[in-house]
């Protein structure tokens, strides 16, 4: 049992199921919208109502006095969408009533000040494009564009009254235009397909944003990882090289000759500290070129990381244990570099050069 709505079709009363009534009023609203500007609009609408009435009659009997939703939908399908009849005169006419536009700042849907929205409405282009252009301009002018934006925000008047809002978009502001737009909007809003399409489009946009963000995130993570490993590798290399200079030098301080095992450990740690990060990083990039990720590589990665940490620890320990020696070396070398009698003397050999 559902509700019945009684309507008047060209002077006769018809009873429709509620859902059928909704479908029919939507159809008639669309038709009326499409006929806007047609001088015979009312007459054609009356013809439509008459045709619909006659089709309804075919479904009614003495015992069946209500037109079902299904029957109404069949009738709407049979009637078909309203097509503008082209003639030599109407082919030139624009159905949209575009008045001269004015540049306003539009607050509805604005992010900051409505500047981009106003410009988009004035130029009849998509807001997103305008916003993108503004961002790019900001980047390319090194931030100077922000001043321009602020000026625009102050100078552009805000569209407050409905007339101003209409002028901003270039619509004629009169009762007829409003009614027609309201009708097409109503028809659009009650159209299921419209909402399904909107939902699908929004979903697609959301998916795209998510995938871009994910890719960006992956890229940033990879870049960070790369920078960190290279940096640590380089640091280890530089550090060990400088240690080498101090330690292996043919000087009084140094454990290289006396303690070969220690020197070996030092060398090995240096090698691992530099080599392992480089290997891991290049492997990671190779994997991402589409090659299959083998299970063994995970184990290898873990082993590599452990070895690397061990190497760094070894370097650290050796350096700490021999820090006094290292400091002595530094002091010693400072002693060796002296300026005596206007001459630069380096090292034990007392080779002196004229100080420049």
């Amino acid at each position: 049992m559902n509700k019945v709505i009684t309507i008047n079709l060209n002077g006769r009363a018809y009873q429709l199921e509620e859902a059928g009534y909704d479908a029919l009023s939507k159809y008639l609203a669309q038709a009326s919208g499409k006929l806007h500007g047609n001088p015979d609009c009312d007459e054609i609408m009356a013809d439509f109502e008459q045709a619909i009435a006659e089709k309804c009659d075919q479904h009614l009997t003495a015992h069946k006095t209500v037109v079902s939703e299904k029957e109404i939908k069949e009738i709407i399908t049979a009637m078909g969408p309203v097509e503008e009849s082209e003639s030599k005169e109407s082919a030139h006419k624009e159905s949209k009533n575009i008045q001269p536009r004015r540049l306003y700042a539009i607050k509805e849907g604005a992010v900051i000040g409505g500047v981009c929205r106003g410009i988009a409405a004035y130029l009849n282009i998509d807001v997103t494009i305008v916003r993108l252009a503004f961002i790019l301009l900001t980047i390319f002018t090194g931030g100077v564009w922000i001043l321009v934006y602020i000026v625009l925000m102050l100078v552009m008047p805000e569209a407050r009254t409905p007339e101003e809002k209409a002028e901003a978009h270039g619509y004629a502001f009169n009762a007829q235009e409003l009614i027609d737009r309201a009708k097409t909007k109503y028809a659009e809003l009650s159209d299921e397909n419209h909402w399904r399409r909107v939902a699908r489009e929004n979903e697609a946009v959301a998916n795209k944003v998510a995938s871009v963000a994910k890719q960006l995130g992956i890229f940033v993570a990879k870049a960070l990882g790369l920078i960190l490993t290279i940096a640590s590798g380089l640091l280890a290399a530089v550090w060990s090289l400088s240690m080498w200079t101090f330690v292996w030098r043919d000087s009084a301080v140094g454990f290289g000759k006396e303690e070969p095992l220690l020197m070996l450990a030092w060398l090995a740690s240096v090698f691992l500290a530099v080599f392992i990060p480089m290997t891991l990083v290049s492997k990671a990039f190779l994997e991402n070129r589409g090659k299959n990720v083998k299970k063994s590589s995970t184990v290898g990665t873990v082993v590599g990381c452990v070895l690397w940490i061990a190497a760094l620890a070894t370097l650290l320990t050796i350096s700490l244990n021999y820090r006094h020696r290292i400091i002595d070396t530094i002091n010693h070398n400072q002693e060796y570099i002296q300026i005596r009698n206007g001459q630069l003397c380096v090292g034990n050999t007392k080779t002196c050069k004229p100080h420049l």
Partner: protein
Amino acid sequence: MSIADNFTPIRKGLLEFAVLKIVAAHKVYAADIIKRLGATEFSTQEGTLYPLLSRLRRENVVSYEWIESGSGPPRKYYQLTTTGRQRLAQLEKYWIKLRNTLQTMGDSHE
């Protein structure tokens, strides 16, 4: 897509011609026209026909009169006006011209 879909714009353009020929033959009302066209390739719907008839009436090519019907409200019965008859004659001549052109297209050895 069937071959008929290729010719949809052509059928749309010729619909006026077809409707005028039907109206020239008898006094008809809209549902009549739809029924007769329905049996042909020019089958069409109310959504298309009513605006077309309305434009033809505006151009004074057809006129209508209300005739009472036994079963229900009065209906508009359409007929051709003098202008309409002239228009139809012009269309007939042009149509034959087009048909001949297409028929002999590609035959000449110039």
